């Protein structure tokens, strides 16, 4: 039998490995990158070293920080639209078979058509900012719809009977049974949608950037590419992936906080 101290120690070591190892991997990667650049005398317009990228990030923060804000705003707007639209449409589908049969195939078509191909068209017909948000929405919308639908279909049929037995209204069934039952699935869908709306925003900005307009991070990448400012391309890329990580972690945290008291997925091994 393990004593409390021992198990605490084991857990502590496991945590140290889990968070320490990725850091070690990163350090080794950066070191190898730096060595390759230095030993081969690779010029910065081909491959900048990690130190130069970091310097650029600090030096160009004025431009890059502003662009980051623009991209994040687009991502956020697209995400909110996808979350609200996806959940609402799933509930609508759940309510009415007719609506579901009429619209579901087109939701799938929207999902399987590459957004890169749609973006230039949207840029023609919509004002630029709206087109970019629309792209983020298109990419992020489907996982929310699909997951919420799955959640609504997994409502316990006995509980449904119980609600019927006590004469629950549609509204009571929606708020007190369907929504909480579907909540873990909805949150799972939102976690995927967060990252996807960033991708959608970037794709649209690239498309807009090739038309010579825009101010988001992806536009900076395109623009820096034309100017052979490779260090800035790397710096912007770094910011984009950092944004993606933060979005994912933020949504995971929210999901954990909402579900921690009752859902299996949020329980640690201790219980």
């Amino acid at each position: 039998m393990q004593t409390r101290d021992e198990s605490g120690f084991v857990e502590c070591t496991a945590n140290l490995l889990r968070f320490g190892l990725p850091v070690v991997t990163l350090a080794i990667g950066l070191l190898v990158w730096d060595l390759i650049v230095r030993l081969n005398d690779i010029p910065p317009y081909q491959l900048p070293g990690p130190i130069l990228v970091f310097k650029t990030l600090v030096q160009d923060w004025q431009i890059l920080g502003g662009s980051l804000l623009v991209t994040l705003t687009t991502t956020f707007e697209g995400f909110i639209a996808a979350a609200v639209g996806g959940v609402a449409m799933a509930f609508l589908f759940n309510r009415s078979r007719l609506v579901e049969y009429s619209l579901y195939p087109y939701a799938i078509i929207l999902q399987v058509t590459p957004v890169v191909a749609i973006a230039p068209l949207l840029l023609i017909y919509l004002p630029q900012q709206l087109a970019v948000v629309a792209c983020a929405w298109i990419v992020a919308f489907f996982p929310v719809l699909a997951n919420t639908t799955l959640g609504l279909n997994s409502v316990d049929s006995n509980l449904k009977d119980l609600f019927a037995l006590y004469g629950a209204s549609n509204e009571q069934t929606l708020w007190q049974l369907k929504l909480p039952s579907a909540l873990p699935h909805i949150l799972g869908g939102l976690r995927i949608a967060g990252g996807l709306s960033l991708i959608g925003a970037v794709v649209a900005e690239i498309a807009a950037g090739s038309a010579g307009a825009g101010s988001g991070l992806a536009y900076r990448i395109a623009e820096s590419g034309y100017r052979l400012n490779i260090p800035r391309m790397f710096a912007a890329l770094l910011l984009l992936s950092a944004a993606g990580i933060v979005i994912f972690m933020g949504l995971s945290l929210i999901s954990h906080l909402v579900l921690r008291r009752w859902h299996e997925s949020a329980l640690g091994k201790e219980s």
Partner: protein
Amino acid sequence: MQSSSGHSAGSAVRLSGVTKTFANGVHALGPLDLTIGQGEFVSLLGSSGCGKSTALRLVAGLTVPTTGHVELAAALRSTPRRSIGFVFQEPTLMPWATVWDNVYLPMRLLRRPRAEVAGRIGEVLESVGLSDFAAVYPRELSGGMKMRVSLARALVTDPDILLMDEPFAALDEITRFRLNNDLLELWRRLRRTIVFVTHSVFESVYLSQRVVVMTPRPGRVASEFLIDAPEPRGEEFRTSTAYVAHCRSVSDALARASAKAA
């Protein structure tokens, strides 16, 4: 000992010529004729798939008969059916709600404010021995405790009839015996009608006043037994010769019903 009418009080439920055929063409039940007296503890005993759960759902109004009539005593006919308590085979609790909120559910659906029914909920939790667990979430409870919550939820509206669909089938024997005794105690105190569906001969004989043996699908009444054991029944009844004799005759009847169908 075989009997078709073993109660003197007015009837709570009367099924006459009830059949149920599902949309997929499966003829699940009947024709079934069954009368359940007020305050009676009746067990419906049969093999899996004989339609005994369907019979319960018909009484609860969760499904309608294909042919025949389900008559309920006037007191049971209110809509919504607050006078009917239903206990499923699984505890069927809402995992996102505490024990208290799970028991509150029927009252909440009937739009009764929390403050108004808090006393009643405390009372019911007390009666199933879960007063200390009101603020706990279902995942923290054992299988037996979850079933007690489910029972408390069915009792909270003070129903006239309690419909139980193999409620203890998934529990271990020790827990099942204890809940059997608790249920008997409860029935002695409240004298509500209980319709108890089970596939256990021993459980049906131990608990009920009357055991209705059903045929395999489509379920019909094969035979009925009055269990005229003295009350209150306790653990000593489980090992008595009378209990063994009852179990043997019910068991034989169940075997005959199955053999006839096969």
